[in-house]
């Protein structure tokens, strides 16, 4: 990776952050702030999943486990200890990394669809532990009574505006770091594994180590998303760790596009906006969401950003090049 592209990424991120922080001063819309906070959580979750899916070719059905783990670890630390918010978040990420290391060491031995299923089984196991370990987690009723949202670097997270600002910063910095990972030599190795694992191994790469590193990094960023989700609902609930949450991330990734870095972010933004809009208009949201999924999978056949980038490229290189592809 050249330092030029890195500088460009940082510039783009800074501009995006500046716009996000300016928004509340220009328009008064609490709903929009809520929306961005949720996107922050969901986009970190989806983009980290795409590091595995699009970046390494590891299809995980159980990535939601780390989203839930982040939420629970953080909420429990905030409720049961007096440590500062930043420390609690840091500890949660370390816990997620350790769990990711253990779970990943087990899962990455398996290939293709079996990897998908064993990750799903891991998530179901994690979920059933949350439900069973009632004295710690509150079981199905979740951690009640709210998270004490302690002040963070002068930000009072009980205020929606402050929570928004912190979420926006975490999202932008988190995505920038993930971007850095995928542009690094590790990212290149992972893509080689995705395209041809035996050849990568033949070139002297320790495949399992690269895969495990990717698994741990993805888990850590998913749980960063989970921390934001816990702050938003002021609690942690088993639904944050259950199977459908992984399904949502998968859909966000597919909807936005696997081969564009910002695809999962776009997918998360569209998916959340769509879900909210549909809920407003009909109780049959499953039906509408189902039809949209069919349209994307069978109609577009690729994620929205993938379609757009390709169209842009075609326009740039002229119709002939596009037709020749």
């Amino acid at each position, binding site marked *: 990776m050249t330092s030029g592209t890195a500088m460009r990424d940082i510039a783009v991120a800074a501009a995006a952050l500046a716009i996000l922080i300016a928004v509340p001063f220009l328009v008064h819309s609490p709903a929009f702030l809520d929306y961005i906070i949720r996107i922050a959580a969901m986009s970190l979750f989806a983009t980290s999943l795409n590091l595995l899916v699009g970046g390494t070719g590891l*299809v995980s059905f159980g990535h939601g486990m780390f989203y839930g783990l982040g939420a629970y670890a953080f909420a429990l630390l905030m409720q049961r200890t007096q440590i500062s918010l930043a420390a609690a978040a840091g500890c949660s990420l370390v816990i997620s990394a350790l769990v990711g290391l253990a779970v990943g060491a087990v899962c990455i031995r398996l290939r293709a669809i079996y990897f998908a299923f064993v990750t799903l*089984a891991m998530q179901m196991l994690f979920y059933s532990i949350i439900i*069973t370990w009632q004295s710690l987690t509150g079981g199905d009723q979740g951690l009640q009574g709210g998270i004490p949202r302690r002040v963070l670097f002068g930000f009072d997270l009980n205020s929606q505006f402050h929570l928004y600002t912190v979420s926006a910063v975490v999202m932008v910095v988190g995505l920038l770091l993930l971007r850095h990972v995928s542009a690094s030599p590790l990212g290149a190795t992972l893509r080689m594994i995705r395209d041809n694992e035996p050849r990568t191994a033949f070139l002297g790469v320790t495949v399992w180590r690269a895969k495990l590193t990717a698994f741990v990094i993805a888990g850590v960023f998913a749980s960063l998303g989970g921390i934001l989700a816990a702050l938003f609902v002021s609690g942690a609930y088993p639904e944050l760790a259950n199977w459908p949450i992984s399904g949502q991330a998968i859909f966000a990734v597919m909807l936005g596009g696997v081969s564009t870095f910002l695809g999962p972010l776009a997918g998360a933004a569209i998916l959340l906006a769509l879900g909210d809009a549909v809920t407003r208009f009909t109780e*049959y949201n*499953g039906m509408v969401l189902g039809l949209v999924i*069919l349209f994307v999978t069978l109609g577009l056949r690729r994620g929205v950003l993938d379609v757009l980038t390709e169209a842009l490229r075609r326009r740039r290189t002229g119709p002939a090049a596009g037709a020749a592809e």
Partner: protein
Amino acid sequence: MDLDALGRCVSTASCLVTQTTSGLIAGLLLFLVAAGLTLIFGVLKVVNFAHGTFYMLGGYIAFTTLQVTESYTLAVLAGGAAMAVFGIFFERALIARVYGQDVLMQLLVCYAVVLIFDDLVKMVWGADFLAMGMPPAFQVPPLFIAGGIVPPFYAVLIGIALVIAIALAASLSGTRAGKTVLAAAQNPTMVSALGVNTDRLFAVVFAIGAALAGLGGALAAPVRSLTPGMGFSVLIDSFIVTVIGGMGSIAGALLASVGVGLIRGFGTIGFPTFTDGLIYVAMIIVLLLRPTGLFGREVV
């Protein structure tokens, strides 16, 4: 955890027999649904996440057929047949478009169907849960066999499940059509080059798989509750069974179903609040020791 109770149960004949039979019953009912799932995967290499939906629709269609005709036999047949037709439609219209694609594409197409039909069922049959009721012929007291309790209704269901297992295995390996299916599973291009209409073959296999799920839903309807979304827990159980048994293996699915049933049967005595956890642990262990399941072959 209550290992004392487990020890006492295992050392008492009546408890051992009863929990074994109830495990077998639960397992074989599960096998009916899982057999269809593993068949579809074995031949078409498609992970059918909509399998629980077939199960649900089979149950609902049986419910309505029973109300109209008052015949349980007809209700079961209608549940199975309707799903066979639905399976063909589903395969041709949707699944055929994502063959050979990313498993995530297949997952999403199936997920869409699950969402759509959960809502459709709510529109047609209502949000209420429904119970079909036991057919009068089976409203008889349970039998006692070697100290174990076996209700006649379940005895019949076990019989049907075993017949289906044997028929499936025999027709796959013993008949010409079955051998073609197995060959197509190995190498569809070659089979197609030999003049076999693989499109039709795939649709038929999908129909059989869907019919098995529908049959499972219809057969069990007298003792289960019908609700929108009822397919989900059955889908998860079927997956566990299919993965443990080895995706594509009927024999593996049978063995794994019975195994899961037995874990339930004795888990409820020894680990009453962690029975499901035991099953996930079993699945993870099997996958670690044999990454393709008990009887599975490597699929990439």
